[in-house]
C-alpha cells in the first residue's frame, strides 16, 4: 500500500465512504448464527482484556438499549443483559477481515482504501483500542462512471445512485451492516457515512464549497474526525454542530483548539488535500498451456504440469514470492468437456521444485481422462514473500546453523506432505488454556492456528494429572463405602475392578462464570485408584454423585 495524493488530480472527485461500525459484531453474529441456527438470536457483546479487567469493546443495538456501553466492565454488562452471548474481541482478526472485504470491493473501483485512522492503529499495533467509527472503507469512484453506466445499462448521466444501491444490496446479502456516502472529499464522505440520518447519502455531481458546507452543517463536530478532547472542549463553549464551527474564524479556532481542528475542517471542505492508503491490487501468477492434440498419457501430463510449475515458480521468483496454494486445472477434450481441478494448499510456502513435484505428482497420477486433456492451467492464488537467509560459509560439524536450516527445510517438506495428504485439520499441536478443569485446561489445535487463546505455557500447572486423558469422561458404576473415600469397586467397560489402593479426594470446582444456566454445584472429587492388576485410573464423582473415569496412567 502507498499513499496517493488526491489533490494532484484536477478533476472533481467522487469518493464513496462506507462505514462498517458494526464490522466486528457482524462477524461474531454470523458465526453465532451458523453455530446455533435454531436458537433465538441473543444480544451479542464483544469483550477484551484491558488493564487487568475484562471490558466490553463492542455491543449490539439490543444490548445498547439495555444500557450497555463500550468500555464497561463485562461483569456489569452481563448484569444488564444476562442472556447475552459474549465473544472475544480481536482487533487484528477484524482488520484482516476488513482487508479481505476491501479486496472484494476492488470490483467497483481500482482504488480501495482502509480508513487512515485504522491503518495507523494497525501500524502502531493498537488495533484493540481503535474506535468502532474508524472501521470503514474508502472507494475512489472518480472516472469509473462510464464503466458502471455501461455495466448497469443505466439511462442516467450519473449512475452513482444505482451503483450505491447495488453495493448496499451486496453488503446486506452478506449480512454486513454498512452505511454509504458519496462526496467530493474524503472528509465529507467520512462524516456523512458515519453521521448522516440516511443509510445511503449521495453528494455527487459538481458541488461548490458552500453547497458542501450546507450538507455538513447539521452534523455533529465528531464527524470531523477530531479527538474526543477537542469535541469535549467545543461542547463546553456550546459548539456541537459543524455549522456553528464554520461561522467562526479559522484563526481563532486554530489558536484555541489547535491546528488539527482547522486541518480537519479544510479537509472536509476540500481546501486541503488528504492522503489515503490505497490497497495495491496484485495480479495473480497464472500459466495456461493449450495442446495441439489431446494428451492422455500419464508421463505427458506429468511433464506438462512440471513445465507449468516451473513457469509459475519462475514468475513468482521475480516478485520474490513463493507459492502457498497451488491450483491446477485440466480441461478435457471431446464432447464431455471433462474438467479436473485440484487445489493443493501447503502448510509452509516453498519454491523447491523437487519438493513440490513430489507433492503434486501423486495427485496427477490419479487424474484420468477418457478423451485426453486439451489444456492445463496452473496458478498460485496464495503466496508468501521469500526471506532469503545468508548461508554460513563453513560448516562446523553437526549442530551448525546450516544443518538447522536444512532440517527446517526437511521439516517443512514433511509437514507439507502430511498436510496435502491428510488435510490441515489433522495435524495438531497442544496448547494450554486458562482453565482448571482438566479437559479444558489444554486442547489440541490445528498446527497453523495462531495461539490466540491458548498459550504454550500453562497458566496453572495441574500436577498429578493422568498422562492420558479420555476424550470425554466415561460413566462407570462404583461402590464407595464412605462419601469422601475412594471407591472400593468399579465396573468400567464391562470389566469389574477391585480397588486395592486409592488416594484423594482432590476437589476441582466448576467454572461457574462459564455457564449461562443458574448455578449448579458441579464440583468434582478426583480420586487416583489402583486396581487388583496394578493399573492406575483417575476417577471422579460429580455433584450428582455419578462416577466417571477420566484418565489412565499408562
Amino acid at each position, binding site marked *: 500500500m502507498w499513499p496517493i495524493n488526491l489533490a494532484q488530480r484536477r478533476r472533481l472527485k467522487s469518493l464513496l465512504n462506507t462505514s462498517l461500525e458494526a464490522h466486528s459484531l457482524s462477524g461474531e453474529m454470523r458465526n453465532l448464527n451458523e453455530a446455533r441456527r435454531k436458537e433465538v438470536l441473543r444480544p451479542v457483546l464483544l469483550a477484551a482484556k484491558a488493564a487487568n479487567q475484562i471490558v466490553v469493546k463492542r455491543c449490539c443495538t439490543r444490548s445498547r438499549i439495555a444500557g450497555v456501553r463500550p468500555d464497561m466492565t463485562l461483569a456489569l454488562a452481563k448484569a444488564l443483559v444476562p442472556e447475552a452471548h459474549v465473544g472475544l474481541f480481536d482487533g487484528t482478526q477484524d482488520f484482516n477481515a476488513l482487508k479481505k472485504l476491501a479486496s472484494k470491493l476492488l470490483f467497483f473501483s481500482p482504488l480501495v482504501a482502509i480508513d487512515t485512522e485504522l491503518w495507523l492503529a494497525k501500524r502502531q499495533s493498537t488495533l484493540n483500542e481503535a474506535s468502532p467509527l474508524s472501521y470503514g472503507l474508502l472507494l475512489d469512484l472518480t472516472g469509473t462512471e462510464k464503466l458502471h453506466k455501461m455495466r448497469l445499462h443505466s439511462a442516467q448521466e450519473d449512475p452513482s445512485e444505482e451503483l450505491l444501491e447495488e453495493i448496499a444490496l451486496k453488503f446486506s446479502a452478506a449480512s454486513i451492516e454498512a452505511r454509504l456516502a458519496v462526496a467530493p472529499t474524503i472528509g465529507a464522505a467520512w462524516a456523512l457515512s458515519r453521521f448522516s440520518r440516511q443509510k445511503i447519502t449521495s453528494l455527487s455531481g459538481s458541488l461548490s464549497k458552500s453547497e458542501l458546507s450546507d450538507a455538513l452543517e447539521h452534523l455533529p463536530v465528531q464527524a470531523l474526525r477530531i479527538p474526543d478532547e477537542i469535541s469535549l472542549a467545543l461542547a463546553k463553549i456550546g459548539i456541537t454542530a459543524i455549522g456553528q464551527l464554520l461561522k467562526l474564524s479559522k484563526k481563532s479556532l486554530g489558536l484555541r483548539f489547535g491546528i488539527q481542528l482547522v486541518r480537519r475542517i479544510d479537509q472536509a471542505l476540500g481546501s486541503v488535500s488528504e492522503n489515503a492508503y490505497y490497497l495495491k491490487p496484485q495480479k495473480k501468477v497464472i500459466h495456461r498451456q493449450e495442446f495441439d492434440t489431446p494428451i492422455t498419457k500419464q508421463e505427458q501430463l506429468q511433464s506438462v504440469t512440471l513445465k507449468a510449475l516451473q513457469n509459475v515458480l519462475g514468475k513468482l521468483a521475480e516478485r520474490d514470492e513463493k507459492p502457498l496454494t497451488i491450483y491446477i486445472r485440466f480441461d478435457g477434450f471431446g464432447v464431455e468437456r471433462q474438467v479436473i481441478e485440484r487445489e493443493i494448499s501447503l502448510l509452509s510456502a516453498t519454491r523447491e521444485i523437487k519438493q513440490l513435484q513430489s507433492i503434486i505428482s501423486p495427485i496427477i497420477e490419479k487424474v484420468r481422462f477418457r478423451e485426453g486433456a486439451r489444456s492445463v492451467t496452473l496458478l498460485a492464488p496464495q503466496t508468501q514473500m521469500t526471506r532469503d537467509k545468508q548461508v554460513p560459509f563453513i560448516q562446523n560439524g553437526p549442530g551448525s546453523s546450516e544443518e538447522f536450516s536444512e532440517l527446517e527445510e526437511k*521439516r517443512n517438506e514433511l509437514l507439507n506432505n502430511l498436510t496435502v495428504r491428510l488435510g490441515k485439520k489433522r495435524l495438531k499441536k497442544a496448547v494450554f488454556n486458562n482453565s482448571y478443569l482438566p479437559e479444558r485446561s489444554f486442547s*489440541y489445535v490445528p498446527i497453523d492456528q495462531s495461539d490466540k487463546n491458548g498459550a504454550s505455557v500453562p497458566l496453572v500447572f495441574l500436577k498429578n494429572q493422568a498422562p492420558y486423558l479420555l476424550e470425554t469422561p466415561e460413566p462407570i458404576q462404583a461402590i464407595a463405602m464412605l462419601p469422601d473415600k475412594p471407591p472400593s469397586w468399579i465396573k468400567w*467397560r464391562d470389566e469389574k475392578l477391585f480397588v486395592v489402593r486409592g488416594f484423594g479426594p482432590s476437589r476441582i470446582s466448576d467454572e461457574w462464570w462459564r455457564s449461562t444456566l443458574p448455578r449448579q454445584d458441579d464440583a468434582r472429587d478426583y480420586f487416583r485408584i489402583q486396581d487388583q492388576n496394578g*493399573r492406575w485410573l483417575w476417577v471422579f464423582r460429580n455433584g450428582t454423585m455419578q462416577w466417571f473415569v477420566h484418565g489412565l496412567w*499408562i
Partner: protein
Amino acid sequence: MNSSLTNSPLTTCLKDGRVWVAESPGITLPQVKESYSANFTERAPFKISAIDNELQGGGIQCGQLHEWFGATAWGTSSWDTSRPPLTILASLFGNLISNCTEERKGFSKVILWIGKECWPSPYLLAQCHGSALFHNSLLQSSLFIDPAGSESRKWCFETALRSPAVAAAVCYLKGVNLTLSRRFAIAAKMGGALGALIRPEKESGLASAAATRWIVRSVRSPTPHPRWELNLLKQKGKQPNRASWIIESHEEQKISLHIPSDVADQSRAEEKIKKSA
C-alpha cells in the same frame, strides 16, 4: 556443506590441513566431521544403568524400529483397548532430547504421535523434559497427528520415519505383517528416526523386523507411584543377561523412571511375582 563448495579450493585446503577451522584449532574439517559422527549415536536411554547396560548402544537407538506391546489394557475382549506405554515413551524421548542438547547444542527435530490413542496429555510432556517455554522442549517438538483409517496411518508412519526431520514417531497399528514391519525398519534406517510401533499384545508371537520388542505390564505397587514390568522379548545383535525389570515413575518436579528400591534385587522381585501369580 554446500554442494558447490565441496570441490572448491578452500575445501581442498581444509582437507590438506593447510587451513584450519578457527573454532577448533589443530583439527581440520574432515576430522571434525568424523569425530562428531564417531562419538555421536542418537539414542534414547532409560537413564537406568541396569537397563541401559543390557541394551545395544546404551539405549533405544534411533534409525531402528522398536515394537511395544501395549498390555496395559482395560475392558473385556469386546473393547479394543490396548494402551501404549505413554509415560515410558515420553520419558525416553525426553532423555533423547536432553542427550542431543548436551552433545550437539541444539535440537530442532520433531516427535510425532500418530493416532489419537497415542496422544499423551501435554502435562506429561511438559513434565518429562525441559521447560515448556523453550522451543526445543519435548512439548514444543511434539506434533499430534490424527489420520483417518489404518491405511492412512501406515502411510503417515512410514513417511514420518523416512524424513530426516523426525527424531521419533509413535504409532498404534494392528495387523502389521513381516513385510510391512520391514518397510518401516528400512524407512527408519533411511531417515534416522526412532520408530516406536505400538501393537496389541496378542500379536507378540508374530514375526517382525523390529530391532527390539518390548512388552509392558502394570504391576501392583505398594507406593503411590505407578509401576510397570518391562520385558525385553527380543534384541537384535546383543543377547541381554536379563530381560525383565520392574520400573516405577516418580512425578515430583519432573517425571523420571526408577527401579524401585524394594525390588532393586530383581531376582527376588521375579520370585515374588511368580508366587503372587
